[in-house]
């Protein structure tokens, strides 16, 4: 009996040592206490090798849980990730309001330009209303080109102004199963891979996330299995080309035909072979001219892309009769300064004069120099371009004809 007791005591001590060894194998807790929440988080115990997502979202202020959700105290993966919003992507539109929202963040007041999440949900990139409307109209499912359906049901933030305003007040959800025309149903099955709520087609060329990250996390060209922890406003054209310039839809087969050319340089990579474009349209990135309201919406619902997109050559270059519209920055709270601060190499100060669009959006990377001329500093490539004006030049344009195809007649480059 005594031998048994001694043996059992030995086993007990051994078991205790095994327990100590097992306890030490657990991940060592690493804690941060972000200033915006004041609560300890232990995500870095396993994820310390992730890069800072952006200079505007420092981890000392935000931490991880504020955007991603999750269980901040858990060191076991399944439990820690169980309450995360949107899986790997908290900016998916289904959860963007919870993740990116907040009155000081991206669901704040429109006057302070803080209503990004609400506006994006009305933009064409989210609603896809133009494509849906034109297909339904073409195949008789609706009587005119006024948008009725969107990817998800949505209400306009701003109702249409008056009887002559054709912008919709609200859109219903497009349900291919309830459509009667087989082509419209086929459209719903094959052609809805390019809007902010859709998963992209397979392949590195199409690789992007959904929601806000579709544009702001430039992951095109990467292996889809390699997540990119980055948010930026410096969006290169390659990210826009995850959806744009990828090919064409065949309306008879109702499927997508990818572009077949291979690109050797930026000029050939940028647009599909059928496009006509000038030098600035491929040397600049899309974000150098296309504004925030054009891409992310302005709270109105639009029937198609032509209505929402309004920037033209004359926005930067003016017309024969008029120089581009400008504004002088009066105080430090000007939205133009807040935007320039995100791209620190664009030196903008109070007192500078910048070009503004016809809808009073600042083109804050296009400044008027002291001598009166204009200079653009490109956001992605950081190149300074002098901006020639139409006024006082030898341009023979008809001032009534400001669409790009008129400018292309002389200025298009040979592809």
């Amino acid at each position, binding site marked *: 009996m005594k031998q048994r007791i*001694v043996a059992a005591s030995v086993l007990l001590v051994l078991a205790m040592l095994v327990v100590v060894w097992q306890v030490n194998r657990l991940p060592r807790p690493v804690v941060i206490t972000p200033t915006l929440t004041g609560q300890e988080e232990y995500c870095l115990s396993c994820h310390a090798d992730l890069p800072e997502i952006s200079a505007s979202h420092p981890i000392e202020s935000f931490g991880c849980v504020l955007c991603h959700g999750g269980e901040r105290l858990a060191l076991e993966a399944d439990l820690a990730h169980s309450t995360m919003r949107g899986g790997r992507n908290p900016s998916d539109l289904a959860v963007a309001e919870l993740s990116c929202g907040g009155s000081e963040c991206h669901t704040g007041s429109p006057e302070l330009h803080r209503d990004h999440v609400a506006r994006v949900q009305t933009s064409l990139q989210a609603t896809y209303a133009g494509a849906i409307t034109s297909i339904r109209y073409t195949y008789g499912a609706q009587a005119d080109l006024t948008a009725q359906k969107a990817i998800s049901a949505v209400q306009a933030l701003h109702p249409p102004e008056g009887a002559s305003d054709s912008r919709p007040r609200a859109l219903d959800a497009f349900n291919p199963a309830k459509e009667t025309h087989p082509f419209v149903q086929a459209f719903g099955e094959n052609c809805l891979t390019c809007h902010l709520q859709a998963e992209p087609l397979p392949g590195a060329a199409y690789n992007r996330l959904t929601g806000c990250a579709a544009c702001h996390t430039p992951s095109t060209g990467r292996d889809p299995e390699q997540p990119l922890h980055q948010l930026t406003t410096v969006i290169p054209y390659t990210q826009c080309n995850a959806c744009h310039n990828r090919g064409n839809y065949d309306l008879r087969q109702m499927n997508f035909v990818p572009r077949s050319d291979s690109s050797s340089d930026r000029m050939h990579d940028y647009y599909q072979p059928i496009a006509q474009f000038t030098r600035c349209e491929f040397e600049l990135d899309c974000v150098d001219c296309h504004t925030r309201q054009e891409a992310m919406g302005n709270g109105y619902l639009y029937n198609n892309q032509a209505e929402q997109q309004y920037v033209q050559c004359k926005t930067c270059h003016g017309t024969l009769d008029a120089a581009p519209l400008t504004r002088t920055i009066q105080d430090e709270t000007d939205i133009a300064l807040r935007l320039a601060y995100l791209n620190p190499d664009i030196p903008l100060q109070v007192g500078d004069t910048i070009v503004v669009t016809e809808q009073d959006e600042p083109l804050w990377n296009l400044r008027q120099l002291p001598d009166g001329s204009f200079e653009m500093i490109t956001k992605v490539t950081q190149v300074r371009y002098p901006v020639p004006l139409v006024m006082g030049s030898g341009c023979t344009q008809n001032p009534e004809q400001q669409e790009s195809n008129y400018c292309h007649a002389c200025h298009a480059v040979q592809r």
Partner: protein
Amino acid sequence: MPVTPSNAKSTTIPRRDFLTLAWKSLLAVSSALSFAGLLRFFSHEPYPAPVTKFDLGPADQFSPGTHAVIAEARSVIVYGSQGLMAYSLICPHLGCTVESAEEGFECPCHGSRFDAEGNLVQGPASQGLKPLSLEVNDGGNLILDTAA
């Protein structure tokens, strides 16, 4: 085996006593390990320690003659005969927060009195107000550290 004078001084120990020694010492080891584990168990502190570093803004706003109470740090900044100093307003007697009086500070709990530069004037406290660390950081701001 019987203990005879010849083997009483030998180094062998009866088996039953060895076994008893064995299990008792093993249990002692287990108990010691358990006790150590228990101490570690109780050592965890769920709530983060309070902030001890305070950024007081540009250092040049504290000119000679300054007498500024920093309430959230329970401290006072004094620019007096000894230059720019910081003193804790926690009474060295039993920890109440001393209040400003005409000629310095007075503790409302037991009546200890200190002068404007923290020296002990009178009262059950046996020492003056504790001086705290002040530093100027790279940005020119004054940093108060109540833990040093």
